[in-house]
């Protein structure tokens, strides 16, 4: 291989094109960032919704490109499947990508942060209700259990992902979503004040509100009448659990994490007027690199 460097750079750049997954990866520990400290990091996250993947498999068989290049599209079984897959993909995409975050200890037991995950902007606030709040370097208990609760709010606007290519211009889908995530986090410290990291686990609940519009172009129903655009709203709750291990030393940590959510996505209107309901499990594995900036001990 003559130009492996370029290939590698391209590969890494390709991974930056994240889809529209809600930022539901939880890589915090139960101990909040001590006051005066800042942590910054990047994560490589994959979103694996099982149901979406199955529908995506069907869509590959039914050539999207052929359909999109037709002069007029008639709503039939083929388009219905594509329509379902498009909605499922938009609501919970099958994707991977990077997110970047910055968190700071703003007061004793309080932490605030911002995360950029693809096109999603996220703000989070975390309160620690259990465990000590000392900095790394402070002599304390080495087997400490920490507990905290966080609230995360994110919003984003997007269209159908690139997988659907030209079909986006024919179906004219547009989505806006707001997500609330409420994780309850416990962590078991490795070393004093999580000097070597921690093992964190917990449960989380989230609520997502999606507003979607369609603007079909030359799409006709079975009576040969044009299909008009619609605007709908849908909200759904999801519940899940997560586990992550933060390992490293003082200033640099590696955080492999895995979250699992189960949700009933609700009912969505298709182009032909039918309703489509789906539910399923979403697995979100991620790997984060985290840097800690700040003083060592009080």
């Amino acid at each position, binding site marked *: 291989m003559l130009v492996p460097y370029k290939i*590698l750079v*391209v590969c890494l750049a390709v991974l930056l094109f994240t889809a529209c997954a809600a930022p539901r990866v939880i890589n915090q520990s139960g101990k909040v960032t001590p006051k005066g400290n800042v942590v910054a990091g990047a994560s*490589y996250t994959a979103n694996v919704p099982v149901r979406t993947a199955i529908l995506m498999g069907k869509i590959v068989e039914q050539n999207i490109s052929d359909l999109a290049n037709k002069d007029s599209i008639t709503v039939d079984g083929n388009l219905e499947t594509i329509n379902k897959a498009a909605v499922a993909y938009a609501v919970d995409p099958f994707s991977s990508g990077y997110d970047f975050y910055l968190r700071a200890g703003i007061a004793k037991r309080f932490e605030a942060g911002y995360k950029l995950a693809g096109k999603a902007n996220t703000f989070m606030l975390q309160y620690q209700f259990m465990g000590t709040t000392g900095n790394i370097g402070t002599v304390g208990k080495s087997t400490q259990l920490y507990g905290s609760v966080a609230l995360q709010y994110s919003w984003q606007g997007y269209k159908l992902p690139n997988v659907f290519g030209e079909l986006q211009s024919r179906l004219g889908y547009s989505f806006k979503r707001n997500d609330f995530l409420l994780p309850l986090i416990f962590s078991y410290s490795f070393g004093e004040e999580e000097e070597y990291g921690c093992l964190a686990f917990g449960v989380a609940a989230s609520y997502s509100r999606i507003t979607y519009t369609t603007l079909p172009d030359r799409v006709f129903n079975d009576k040969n009448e044009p299909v008009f655009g619609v605007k709908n709203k849908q909200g759904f709750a999801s519940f899940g659990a997560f586990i992550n291990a933060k390992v490293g030393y003082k200033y640099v940590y590696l955080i492999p994490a895995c979250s699992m959510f189960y949700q009933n996505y609700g009912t969505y209107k298709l182009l032909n007027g039918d309703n489509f309901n789906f539910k399923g499990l979403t697995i979100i594995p991620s790997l984060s690199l985290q840097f800690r900036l700040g003083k060592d001990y009080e």
Partner: protein
Amino acid sequence: MLRCLVILILVFFTSCSGGLYTHYPKVRQQAKEKNLPEKQFDKITLKHETLPTKRISIPSATVQSPIKIEIEQSQLPLIPQKQINAPTQKTAITGDGRPRDATHYNKNAKVAFVAAIGALTFFVAGLLIHPAFLIAMFLCTLLAFVKGIKAIRKIMKTGEHGRYKAEFALYVAIPLLFLSIVGIIAYLSANGTGLQIGNVFIP
């Protein structure tokens, strides 16, 4: 062979020691100065003086039974003398209150340091020569990470040398470990192989 040599040497010295006194140069010199024949001088010098005998009173030893603690102490396993006379741990408290030592160098710290340097080398090779070097980089970073953590934990407890090498190894290895994993996934994806998790394919 060695036994024969030793026996020969012993025989040689025994035979020499027999005639050593008479042939000792200083003795001969003294005999010459006093105009005495050498053999006669030998006899004079060899003559033993008889001293008057004297009675010495030997104090009678009293035998005491050992107390319980002494018996218990005598039954303890022997500690090598080196550890008693030359302690390996110094507990000088400096800076952040961690004990430091000036005697031992932690081996894991050295291994971690070398592995971190290796990982850096493979990282450059992965960028310039072939992405397959990322696998070697991944293995090196894993080694540096595991050994570094092990080293730093022990150093913090015992105060051995090698703290800075272990810290350097960790600070280098952890970001490179992240990059190697992400790089391998990216490389597999670019080659169309992707990452298969069960019946799900991550492109």
